[in-house]
C-alpha cells in the first residue's frame, strides 16, 4: 500500500511558551477617543502626535475593510487590548530587564545572537521596547539605532521623524494603517549617515506575550546617500485561543545609491491576524532587498511595497510562505516603477499543506515616466496534499512602451520524475522527496545570514516520512 509522504507542520514548541501577564497593566480593550488619549498621556506624546492619533482613529472608523483577501471575521477589534503598560523602562543592559522577559528573549536566542553576530538589537515585549542597544563602534560611526519614541522626544531627531512618520503609509492607506496610526507604540528608529556601510546587521525582535492583545510597532529607517544596512526583523507569539492582532508598520527611506536589505522571519502563533504594512521608497541608484519568510499567523495580509522613485533604483523581493492547518496566508509584493531605468525582481515560493491556504498576490506598476525599466516576476507554488489550496494572483499594469516586463508562475506537486531520478542515484523515496522540498525553499534560506538560514530550516521542520507503495 502506498503511504503518502508527510511533511509535518512547523515545530512551534520554541515559540509556544509564555509567562502569565499582570492584567492590571492592560488598557481597556477596544477603541475610543478616551483610550487613544490615555495612550498619548502614557507616552507623553507631543501635540502633533496627539492630534495625529485622533485623526487616524476618525479615519479608521470611516474606512471600510478591503473587499478582497482572506476573511478576518474572527477578529473583533473591540476585544483587542491595544496597549499594555510596560513594567520597567527600556534598558541597554539585559541584566536590568525583568527576569521573565529576559528569559523569553534568551529562549528565542536574541542575546546570544547579539553577542555573536549583530551590530545592535532591539527587543519589544507586548507594547513597548524593553531592551535596545547598539555596539559602541557602530554608534560612533553616526548610526542611530534606538526606539522610535525616545528618538521622537530627542530634539536632534524630532523634526526628522515628524517629516517621515506615516508619510509613506498614511492612515488613509487602508483600515489597519489608520488603526496603526491611532494606537501605535514601540518599534525602532534607524538612521544611517551618508557613506556609512554597516557590515553586520541590526535586529529588532517583536514578541507579543499577552492574551487577546495587539502589537502595533512602528519601524522607521532612513538611509542617507551611499550607505548600507542589513536590518533583520523577527516576530513571534505564544498560542492562545483568543484572536491576537499584529498591525505594525514599516517605513523605509533609501537614499541615493544606498542599499537596504530588510529580512523578516515571521512566526506568529496561529491565533494571530497579521495585518502588517511595509513600504520603501528608493532614490536614484538605491536598492531595496526584501527577504521574507512567512510561517506563522492564522491570517496574513502582507505585501511589502517598493516605490522606485529615482533613476536606476532597484528592488528585489525574495519570499517564502508556508501555510499549514488553519492558516490563510495572503502574501506577495508590490512594486511601483516611477523613474527611468528602474528594475525589479520578485522571486517567491509557497508551500500549502494540511488544509492551509496560501495566496501569492502581486502588483507591478510601471508608470509612463519609467522609461527603460525592467521587471521580472517568478513565483512557484507547491501543493503537498489535496485538502490545501494555493492561488496566484499577479497583476502587471504597464503605462509605457519602453519597458521590458516578464512574468512566470508555476504550480504543482513534487515531480515524480525528479523523485525517480534521485532514487536512481541511490536515495530512498523519503530522502528524495525531502531533498526536493528543501531545495524548493532554498532560494530564501540562501539569502539569509547563515545563523538565520539555520533557524529557518528549523522553522520549516520538514520531517519527511514515507514508504514505497
Amino acid at each position: 500500500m502506498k503511504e503518502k509522504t508527510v511533511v509535518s507542520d512547523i515545530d512551534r514548541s520554541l515559540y509556544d511558551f509564555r509567562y502569565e501577564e499582570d492584567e492590571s497593566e492592560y488598557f481597556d480593550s477596544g477603541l475610543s477617543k478616551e483610550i487613544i488619549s490615555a495612550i498619548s498621556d502614557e507616552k507623553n506624546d507631543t501635540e502633533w502626535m496627539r492630534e495625529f492619533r485622533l485623526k487616524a482613529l476618525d479615519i479608521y472608523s470611516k474606512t471600510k475593510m478591503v473587499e478582497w483577501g482572506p476573511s478576518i471575521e474572527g477578529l473583533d477589534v473591540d476585544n483587542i487590548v491595544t496597549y499594555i503598560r510596560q513594567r520597567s523602562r527600556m534598558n541597554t543592559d539585559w541584566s536590568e530587564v525583568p527576569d521573565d522577559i529576559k528569559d523569553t528573549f534568551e529562549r528565542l536566542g536574541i542575546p546570544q545572537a547579539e553577542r555573536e553576530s549583530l551590530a545592535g538589537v532591539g527587543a519589544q515585549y507586548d507594547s513597548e521596547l524593553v531592551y535596545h542597544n547598539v555596539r559602541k563602534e557602530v554608534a560612533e560611526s553616526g548610526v542611530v539605532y534606538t526606539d522610535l519614541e525616545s528618538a521622537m522626544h530627542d530634539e536632534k531627531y524630532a523634526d526628522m521623524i515628524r517629516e517621515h512618520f506615516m508619510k509613506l503609509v498614511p492612515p488613509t492607506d487602508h483600515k489597519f494603517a489608520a488603526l496603526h496610526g491611532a494606537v501605535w507604540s514601540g518599534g525602532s528608529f534607524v538612521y544611517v549617515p551618508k557613506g556609512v556601510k554597516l557590515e553586520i546587521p541590526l535586529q529588532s525582535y517583536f514578541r507579543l506575550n499577552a492574551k487577546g492583545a495587539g502589537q502595533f510597532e512602528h519601524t522607521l529607517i532612513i538611509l542617507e546617500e551611499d550607505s548600507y544596512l542589513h536590518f533583520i526583523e523577527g516576530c513571534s507569539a505564544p498560542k492562545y485561543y483568543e484572536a491576537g492582532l499584529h498591525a505594525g508598520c514599516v517605513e523605509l527611506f533609501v537614499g541615493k545609491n544606498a542599499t537596504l536589505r530588510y529580512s523578516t522571519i515571521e512566526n506568529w502563533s496561529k491565533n494571530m491576524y497579521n495585518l502588517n504594512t511595509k513600504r520603501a521608497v528608493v532614490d536614484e541608484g538605491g536598492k531595496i532587498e526584501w527577504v521574507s519568510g512567512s510561517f506563522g499567523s492564522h491570517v496574513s495580509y502582507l505585501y511589502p511595497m517598493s516605490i522606485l522613485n529615482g533613476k536606476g533604483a532597484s528592488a528585489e523581493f525574495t519570499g517564502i510562505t508556508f501555510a499549514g492547518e488553519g492558516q490563510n496566508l495572503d502574501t506577495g509584493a508590490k512594486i511601483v516603477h516611477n523613474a527611468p531605468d528602474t528594475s525589479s525582481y520578485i522571486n517567491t515560493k509557497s508551500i500549502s499543506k494540511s488544509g492551509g491556504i496560501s495566496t501569492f498576490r502581486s502588483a507591478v506598476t510601471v508608470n509612463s515616466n519609467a522609461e527603460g525599466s525592467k521587471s521580472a516576476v517568478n513565483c512557484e507554488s507547491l501543493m503537498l496534499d489535496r485538502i490545501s489550496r494555493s492561488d496566484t494572483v499577479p497583476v502587471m499594469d504597464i503605462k509605457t512602451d519602453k519597458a521590458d516586463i516578464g512574468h512566470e508562475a508555476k504550480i504543482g506537486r513534487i515531480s515524480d520524475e525528479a523523485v525517480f531520478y534521485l532514487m536512481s542515484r541511490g536515495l530512498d523515496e523519503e530522502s528524495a522527496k525531502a531533498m526536493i522540498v528543501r531545495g524548493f525553499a532554498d532560494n530564501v534560506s540562501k539569502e539569509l545570514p547563515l545563523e538565520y538560514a539555520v533557524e529557518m530550516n528549523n522553522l520549516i521542520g520538514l520531517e519527511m516520512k514515507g514508504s514505497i507503495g
Partner: protein
Amino acid sequence: MDNKKLNILPVPTFGWLKVNYEERENENDNERRVTKLNCSDGEKTRLEINESAAQRYELEVKGGQSVEVIEFITAKRADTQTAIKLESGARARLIQVITGTERTINNVRAFLSDGAELEYISLNIGGEDTLSDINARLDGRGARFEADIGYKVSNEGKLDINLLAEHFGKRTETRINASGVLSEKADKTFKGTIDFKNGAVGAKGKEKEDVLLLDETVRNRTVPLILCAEEDVEGSHGASIGRIDERQLFYMRSRGLDEQTIYKLAARARLDMVIRRIDDEQTNARIRQILGGNDDE
C-alpha cells in the same frame, strides 16, 4: 440608467489597480433574442452580428459530432451571448471576430462533457470599447479547451477580456495564448484564470500572453491567475510585455530592415499567430482586408 458589473475577476485583488470588474450602463433591458443554432456534424455556420440588439445564440453538439461557428461582430452596440454545450466526445470551434464596434459586450459560456473539445479563437480589431467574458467549464473527464486570442487596440480603444477556465473533471486540459499590439492611447486588460477545482486530478493548464507596446501613450494590464485546490495538477503562466528584444532588433537591423518596418512586422506577426489558426479562407480574406488598410506590409 443603472450600471452593472461585468468581467468580474474570479478572485478580487488590490482595488487601486481597477481590474476587479468593469462597470457599464445597463443598456439592454429589453428581451434578448434567442437563436438556437442547428448545426450538423462537420458543418460550418456563419453569423453576421450587425444589429445593435441583445442576442443569444445556443449551440448544443451531440456526442462525437464536430461543428464550427464563425461570428463576425460588427454591430455598433453589440450585446452578444453564446452558450455552448458539448456532449461526450463532441468538438466545437468558435471563431469570433469583433471589429469596428462602438461598444461590445460579448459573453461566451461553454460546458464540456467527457472528452469534449472546444477551440476558441478570437480576434479583436478596431473596437472602441470591447468587453469579452469567456467561461469554459470543463466538467467531463479529459475535456480540453484551447483559446487563441489576438488583439490590435489603438486610437483610444479600450479592450477588457476576462477568460476563465474551470477544471472540474479529471485529466482536463487548457491552453490559453493571447497576443496583441497596443498603440495610440490604447487601454487593454487581459484577465486569464485557470481554476483547478478539488477533484480535477491530473489536470493541466498553461497560459501565455505576449504584448507588444508601440508607444508611450498605451496602458496594458495583464492579470494571469492560477487558482488551485487540487494537488495533482500542473499549471503555469507566462507573460512578456514591452518592446522588441534588443537582440532581435539588432538581428533584424543587420538584415537590412529599419526599425519602423521591424515593428510593423512584429505587430502583424502577433496577430498572424491567431489568424493562421482560423483556417477559413473567407474569414481570413475579410480579416486581411480590415488589417490591410492599416498596416499593409
